């Protein structure tokens, strides 16, 4: 992935997404997340097994993608549901989509703009796919360490 380090001038832009990701994991899973990296990037190429995607429309347009590997998804599912899936099934899809939904919704609230709407989440499985954001979007990558392994939250907004 082609990346650009964050400069102080743009370092505040991801704040609602950092806070919303931490809030979702703290409230729903009792987990504190470490932010291991933030950067601007030119395109999104997922290295993860499963990704949840949710769109923003209205006065802020764009997309948010949360990505994680299977063992992380299974561990999170176990925390939420009380049992551990053995494959990326409909329930894991649903869970990753719901995480995207909650992170996007919470970030929307933190941005304080009532004229923003969220779509319904979509989930993608399999590695090495590209997601192409609108060329006008400012694209950011946030890398977190959860108690179960790494996840990423990528978003492109304009």
């Amino acid at each position, binding site marked *: 992935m082609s990346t650009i380090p964050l400069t102080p001038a743009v370092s505040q832009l991801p704040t609602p997404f950092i806070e919303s990701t931490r*809030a*979702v994991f*703290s*409230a*729903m899973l009792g987990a504190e997340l470490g932010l291991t990296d933030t950067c601007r990037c030119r395109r999104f190429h997922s290295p993860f097994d499963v990704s949840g995607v949710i769109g923003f429309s209205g006065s802020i347009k764009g997309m948010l993608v949360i990505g994680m590997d299977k063992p992380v998804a299974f561990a999170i*599912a176990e925390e*939420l*549901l*009380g049992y551990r899936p053995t494959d990326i099934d*409909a*329930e894991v899809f*649903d*869970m990753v*989509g*719901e995480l995207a*939904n*909650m992170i*996007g*919704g*919470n970030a*929307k*609230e933190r941005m*304080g703009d*009532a004229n923003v709407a*969220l779509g*319904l989440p979509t989930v993608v499985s399999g590695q090495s796919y590209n997601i192409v954001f609108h060329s006008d979007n400012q694209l950011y990558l946030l890398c977190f360490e959860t108690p179960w392994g790494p996840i990423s939250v990528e978003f492109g907004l304009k």
Partner: protein
Amino acid sequence: MKVLVVDDSGVMRKIIIRSLNAVGVTDVVEAGDGEEGFVQFQAQPFDLVLTDWNMPVRNGLEFVTDIRRTGSKVPIMMITTEGQRSQVILAIQAGVTDYLVKPFEKESLRAKLDKYVPV
């Protein structure tokens, strides 16, 4: 006590049902959107309705409006990512009794449920 849980996320329905079970409620009916939820609502009496807002087919706000149009006074709790004040006001105007913003801590949901679950 019979509870209707309406959310397009099966995982979220399971999380909510786990909390209901933890406060002693086991008679739960699930629906995946507002249309399916309203079919269930008309088919049998409920003591409490828990619903999401953003759902396909028929959203939670439309579902709540449908219920109130029947004249029902059943308590309805909306559990949603829509946390802005303007949205909460819209929901209350539609007839929502209680409101919980996702993400929520298990304790917050249980505290809300305690208000409706008989001791």
